[in-house]
């Protein structure tokens, strides 16, 4: 009888552990679904409003950056390459520049940024970063949201293209 009770307790603990492992693999930092994440509508460099909801079925990577931030600029060629590689079906990068609009427009054109570049001047951009879970308030800050609304990556500071790619949710075989 005693042995059965022990085995039952072990089974319950093991099941709880397995469940927790599964959940943490699906939601790395256990953030709520996208419905609970802040949304936004910000004009791109052409003046068109853009929101993360404009890209159903795609993973959205929100990249907060600025021209005055060298590690942000270092990331951008990799982001351009990822948008080229996966942008057709799987990934949409949104660059949110916390910067002067004219400087951003000049830089984006010169570098050839191939994804929407949204500009927020003033403190509102940092408030938006906070709402997405930024702790330090520095740049760059990247948040990746899978199509099911789960946050797959939330990273303050420079992140590599490989790290971003590893968090993408791709169909089997890609």
């Amino acid at each position, binding site marked *: 009888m005693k042995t059965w009770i022990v085995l039952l*307790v072990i089974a319950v603990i093991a099941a709880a*552990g397995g469940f927790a492992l599964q959940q943490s693999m699906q939601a790395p930092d256990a953030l709520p679904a996208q419905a609970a994440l802040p949304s936004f509508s910000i004009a791109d460099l052409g003046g068109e409003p853009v929101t993360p909801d404009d890209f159903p079925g795609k993973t959205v990577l929100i990249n907060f950056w600025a021209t005055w931030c060298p590690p942000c600029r270092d990331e951008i060629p990799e982001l351009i390459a990822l948008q080229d590689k996966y942008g057709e079906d799987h990934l949409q990068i949104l660059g949110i520049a916390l910067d002067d609009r004219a400087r951003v427009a000049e830089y984006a054109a010169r570098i050839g940024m191939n994804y929407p570049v949204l500009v927020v001047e003033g403190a509102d951009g940092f408030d938006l970063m906070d709402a997405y879970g930024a702790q330090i308030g520095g740049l760059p800050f990247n948040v990746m949201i899978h199509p099911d609304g789960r946050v797959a990556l939330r990273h303050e*500071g420079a992140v590599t293209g490989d790290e971003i790619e590893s968090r993408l949710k791709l169909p089997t075989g890609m």
Partner: protein
Amino acid sequence: MGSRLFISIALISFSALSAANDFGADSQAAFLSADQAFVADVWMDGEQATVAWQIAPGYYLYGHALAFELDGATLQASIPAGEPYRDEHFGDVSIYRDQLFVALPPEAARGTLTVHYQGCADAGLCYPPTQRSFTLPPP
């Protein structure tokens, strides 16, 4: 024997559960806040005000981002030469590590001093332009 076995398995399972909760969490360098990375202070020696920054190891301030105002009017401060730094965007600039002392001109003895600064971490993070205000003379 049975109870010892149970306790051992329970402890192992608890450890596994804790590890599971950490699995997949974002791995990134632990950065200091801007106020921890760049500790600004001001002091007076007679009528001479000096602004000082203690800069944490692995962090630096940009010279071109330093600016000083007294009651809203720009102050021309004598900023010491820094470490030359080639930035793709800003060109040839100076950066400061460890500590920086800037002596303010004599007229900056009384009023509200506002200092502007901006810096980054070598590990790949930049802080937004920051400003701090001080009352002169310090209380």
